[in-house]
């Protein structure tokens, strides 16, 4: 067996705080309490991922979760994902409108290019769009060439801004994966907040070479894809977990200030006929509660920023 270098027992970052300089170490309990408009306790951020998984997936440097898994052409996974963009999303629109819930749409720019009807429908709804990268197979990753990534981010943002008519301020990387440069490139290209770091329940400041971004909390643990397709729980159990999370956060908010319930959901997962009723059940419960502020990601961001 090969022996380890003596450096293996040296710890150059061993000091108070983080082992990098992107953000300050801070425990949630020690922060200033936040209040939401009209004294609401829970800001509800429904984040709908609208995604394009290409059939000719390259998988560099890894296969995106939810992507193709079979040899080419994997019609099975391609068409099941596309189901969300044709069928599931229209079930989502109806459910969201029925319970008067404000969604935020995280869209791959490639999908906006492919499906003008879908983008046009979202434009007419006047919901906030954030950029979810170019497509699900255009990953951002450690060691990626800086010029290549810069071009990819510019292409994604310019394209979605032009097609949507919105000045896109938010970003989610495909698979929430980044290179060491991603936040710097995002900040240089007009992004104000991003949602890739799942290390908090509240927004926090994130340092970049080009100014400060806000990291917004978008839980992966409570995501439909993660619970149903990764953990293999039922859609009904997803709804139970969301309701439990909501009740806990509501209780915590009574003593600790406003909290955020962020639900990252996908029409190709919950938009299936046998699952949609569980999204509706959750939306009904949340919309019935007077402590809930249903709003877009950027409105939550502004309300938080104004109190810092």
């Amino acid at each position, binding site marked *: 067996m090969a022996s380890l270098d003596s450096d293996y027992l040296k710890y150059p970052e061993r000091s108070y705080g983080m082992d990098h300089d992107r953000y300050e170490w801070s425990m949630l309990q020690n922060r200033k309490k936040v209040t939401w408009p009209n004294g609401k306790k829970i800001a509800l951020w429904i984040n709908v991922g609208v995604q394009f998984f*290409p*059939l*000719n997936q390259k998988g560099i440097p890894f296969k995106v979760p939810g992507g193709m898994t*079979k*040899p*080419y*052409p994997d*019609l*099975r996974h*391609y*068409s*099941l994902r*596309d*189901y969300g*963009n*044709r*069928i599931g999303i*229209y*079930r989502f*629109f109806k459910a969201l409108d029925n319970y008067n819930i404000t969604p935020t749409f995280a869209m791959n720019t490639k999908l*906006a290019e*492919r*499906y*003008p*009807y*879908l*983008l*046009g*429908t979202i*434009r007419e709804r006047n919901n906030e769009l954030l950029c979810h990268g170019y497509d699900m197979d255009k990953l951002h990753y450690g060691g990626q060439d800086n010029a290549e990534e810069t071009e990819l981010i510019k292409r994604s943002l310019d394209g979605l801004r*032009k*097609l*949507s008519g919105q000045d896109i301020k938010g970003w989610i990387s495909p698979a929430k994966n980044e290179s060491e440069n991603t936040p710097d490139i995002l900040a240089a290209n007009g992004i104000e907040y991003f949602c890739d770091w799942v290390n908090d329940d509240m927004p926090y400041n994130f340092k970049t070479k080009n100014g400060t971004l806000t990291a917004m909390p978008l839980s992966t643990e409570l995501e439909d894809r993660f619970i149903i397709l990764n953990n*293999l729980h*039922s859609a*009904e159990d997803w709804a139970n977990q969301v309701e439990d999370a909501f009740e806990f956060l509501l209780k915590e908010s009574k003593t600790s200030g406003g909290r955020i319930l962020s639900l990252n959901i996908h029409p190709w997962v919950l938009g*299936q*006929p*046998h*699952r*949609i*009723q569980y999204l509706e059940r959750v939306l009904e419960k949340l919309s019935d509660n007077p402590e809930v502020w249903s709003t877009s990601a950027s409105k939550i961001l502004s309300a938080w920023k104004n109190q810092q």
Partner: protein
Amino acid sequence: MKEDPGYYDYWPYENRPKIEWPNGAKVAFWVAPNIEFYELNPPNNPFRKPWPQPNPALPGYTSRDWGNRVGHIRQMELLEKYGIRGSISLSTALCDHHPEIIELCAARNWEFFSHGIYNTRYTYGMTEAQEREMIKDSIETIYKHTGQKCAGYLAPALSHSENTLDLFAEVGTELFGDEAGIYSCDLFHDDQPTPINLRSGKRFASIPYSLEMNDTIAYLVQKTTPRSYGKEIKDNFDRLYTEGAESGTIMCIPTHNYQVTNAHRIKAYEEALEYITGHSDVWVTTGKEIAQFFLDNYYDIALEDIKTKKQKYGKLG
């Protein structure tokens, strides 16, 4: 390699022209038992390994063989009890191995459609000529043993090439004219039938064969419990039944005799079948009947609506 199969166009699920099924049914309901033969010693395919263990791979082989020896009769009797004619997704070599099963199904006027020759012979790596020959063999085998002109296709083990649907449609026409090779179960993009773009321009439809309701996906991939599977089937039906009032929907339960008919699973399946067939506005039918009805009555209307929707927003920006 293409980023998009190109078989179908974007068709949003809102304000579509109303599909009315026979007798005012809201849902066209069909059950597709996969009657498959897996080989004990299949040849190697460079793109997919047939079994996880070296030959002989007993766990996978024997549980599937159980489906033909024990499970088949159970499912056939169950479907008969609820007035359902199966639409069989057939490993056509089964006609040679187990003709008794074919005769039992043919006597009940079940539909046979092609699921390749064996479920251990993948399309991956085949030349176009090889895939054409395999498809042709499968259609001819069905005709020889049942007299049926094969209407539908589900590629063996869902293994495809870029030309799979084109080849199936072309071979169907070559052998039997336009009544054969008219629908595919290979795409999962919709809850209604959709027109498929083929290089030949032949009128051809995708008929939803729900992978989400497939017992093998439920039990082996999603690790669902039987009762939970039964509940999902009912939930799936409820939504499609409600939406079917606006425009007819399709619900399919694809099954496998080695999965759903296990003694500990069959009760949940039966309860779901009883629930669905207990509703008044359900067209209990077969894949071919749905495809033919769609091609005869709604195919052109669908194409027209797809074109209209495409024009609505044009190119934005």
